[in-house]
């Protein structure tokens, strides 16, 4: 987090819009030849004021808003938040609901890690890997759609349990899909261990030593690839993890290659976890009735999201709305180690090093601040204005959806 003040070097901006970044964040990198001499990061482009918005919504409304913090780890955020609310309200959810949350959580991890593998492939110019993994990711996405009705933002959590049960037929579908995915993942593990150019591009790149990882409080696969065996599922079990058997995958290579192996290993663990959940899931109801008002109190909830430890702090004041909701997404904890990892590396390593922490900047930044260029200064625009502006803009372009909308309202 230091400004770059060396004028001899070439400074190149990576972001806010850049092909290497899937979301807007800005890195300023100083180059001498191909070597990176300094780097600085500017966050906040995705700040949407979700924390503030939560204070003006009821717990149930807030839950679905929280779920939209991120498209990839939506279940992580919603589970983390709902756990905190249930803790304050003193609600003990049923075992079946716990298992269902675990099931969706693990399926989400599978889809997130496969996504990451593809992105990592793309960052090092290995597009074939991207196409393969994203094709396989469709399997788990379809599965999530059959279980919850949505490919992302599952909306399965609610205060007091889950909203959808799993049928016998769905259980079989899950097992079938997991078999396919496991076979494919084994192939990727072989690939990661055998493909020379891949290893060449990943090994020894983006080194974060064990000490630095501890000092900078890295979380998730980033920390586990630096030999820190830390996993909230093991250390502070939530949902059904206390009753399930799984290993925490960690390696000591401290580089991007290690992070790849950790994620691939975690995929295999997730398959085993999903099978255990399907085998052990107890019968019973999935929802416990709960009051709309939550008594005053506070709670910190932790959840092992695919990217690492997700932390939510909720303070209740006895009304229907929370007093304060704080979200600490895993990327925020990891982003600070990126500058360390980029030290003395080549420009070519920059995309993969940034990608290796699996950054999710939407999670990280959470107010719409639209810059008004005509009347100097900022302007906060409400959602409805943007929507109307959008409709007007398209109308001016000759695209009108009014008749279509009328038809839709008639249908429903």
């Amino acid at each position, binding site marked *: 987090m230091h400004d770059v003040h060396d004028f001899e070097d*070439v*400074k*190149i*901006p990576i972001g806010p819009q*850049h*092909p*290497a970044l899937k979301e807007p964040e800005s890195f300023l990198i100083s*180059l001498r030849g*191909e070597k990176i001499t300094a780097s600085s990061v500017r966050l906040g482009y995705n700040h949407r004021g979700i924390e503030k918005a939560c204070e003006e919504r009821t717990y149930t409304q807030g839950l679905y808003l929280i779920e939209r913090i991120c498209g990839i780890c939506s279940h992580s955020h919603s589970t983390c938040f709902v756990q905190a609310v249930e803790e304050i309200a003193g609600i003990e959810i049923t075992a079946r609901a716990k298992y269902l949350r675990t099931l969706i959580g693990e399926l989400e991890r599978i889809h997130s890690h496969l996504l990451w593998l593809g992105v990592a*492939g*793309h*960052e*090092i*110019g*290995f*597009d*074939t*890997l991207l*196409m*393969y993994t994203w*094709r396989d990711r469709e399997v788990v996405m379809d599965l999530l759609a059959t279980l919850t009705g949505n490919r992302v933002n599952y909306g399965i959590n609610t205060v007091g349990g889950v909203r959808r049960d799993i049928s016998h037929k769905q259980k079989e579908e899950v097992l079938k899909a997991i078999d396919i995915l496991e076979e494919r993942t084994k192939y990727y593990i072989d690939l990661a261990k055998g*493909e020379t*150019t*891949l290893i*060449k*591009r990943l090994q020894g790149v983006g080194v974060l030593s064990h000490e630095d990882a501890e000092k900078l409080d890295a979380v998730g696969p980033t920390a586990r690839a630096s030999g820190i065996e830390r996993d909230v599922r093991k250390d502070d079990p939530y949902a059904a993890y206390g009753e399930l058997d799984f290993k925490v995958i960690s390696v000591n290579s401290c580089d991007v290659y290690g992070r790849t192996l950790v994620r691939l290993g975690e995929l295999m663990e997730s398959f085993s976890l999903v099978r255990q959940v399907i085998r052990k899931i107890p019968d019973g109801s999935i929802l416990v009735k709960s009051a709309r008002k939550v008594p005053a109190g506070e709670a910190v909830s932790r959840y092992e999201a695919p990217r690492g430890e997700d932390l939510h702090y909720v303070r209740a004041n006895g009304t229907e709305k929370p007093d304060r909701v704080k979200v600490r997404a895993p990327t925020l904890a990891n982003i600070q180690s990126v500058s360390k990892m980029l030290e003395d590396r*080549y*420009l*070519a*390593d*920059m*995309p993969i090093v940034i990608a290796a922490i699996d950054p999710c900047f939407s999670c990280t930044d959470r107010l719409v601040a639209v810059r008004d260029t005509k009347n100097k200064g900022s302007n906060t625009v409400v959602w409805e204005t943007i929507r109307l502006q959008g409709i007007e803009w398209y109308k001016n372009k000759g695209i009108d959806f009014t008749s279509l909308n009328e038809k839709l309202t008639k249908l429903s």
Partner: protein
Amino acid sequence: MLKALFHILIFPGLSFLFVFGFFAEYVDRKLYARLQNRIGPPWFQPLADFIKLISKQEIIPEEADNNVFKLMPLLALAASSVAILYIPISGERSVFSFNGDVIVVLYLLTIPTFAYFLGGWYSRSVYSMIGAVRSLTQLFAYEVPLFLCILASAMLADTWSLSGIAAFYNQHIGYWFCNIIGFVVALICLLGKLEKVPFDIPEAETEIVAGSFTEYNGRLLAFIRMSFNVEMVVGASLLAAVFLPFGLNLAPAGVLICYLIQVLIIIVAISFLRTLFARLRLDQMINFCWKYLAPLAFLQVLFNLTLKVVLPR
């Protein structure tokens, strides 16, 4: 005069190169897509892309050197198009030929890379400048093994003319196998020349957006893409003429079909190779070229020098 115009404009000149270039691009993209489990573009996609780009508004950065920026894509296209006239594609004889045209063709094929460098450098964008420097650095890595391989083949044939090389290997058809190392090395070098994975370092999308071509758009970008297609065809033709002396004794139509098949085989090989690998880093690429490709090319030269003494002529 009319004949020369025909050669320059129709066959094997611009028209043929454009059509075959589009086709080569289609084969490359379609195959690349199929190998990656995608459907890939329809046959007219390269042409459609070209027309779309041609019809777009041209934007030239304020900072850029206007003339150089505009001139370089045309220069690249022209240089690679001229090279085809010296390569024997329909039979043993090329359109123009003299003793020493191997060197001319190799240098004509180097001009596009310099054109990309200058175009990138004068765009005055950091991404373009880094890309430009990278393409030049890369040039020094693959150019030496590529030259050595082709010269090794020429040494065995004891001629400096491409037509002469073709004629020699046509007479001694079995000798092509002696150059097999050279062929493989030259094929890998061609990947570097065409800036394809694993050597697409100068235009690495995730690092420097599009390298030298970041600021290019519209018509100029269309020319750059065209010159890459033409380079691909000409590069493949050069390799085919030097290393694959097959079917030169057939009827004229047969010779042409044989040539097209050989070029397509080389293009297919390029598509396969770029599906298989991740992009290397610049230092790794240079290491690879000097540690493995250059010694192999030297080996080919030594081997051919020995053969020249041993083999009957």
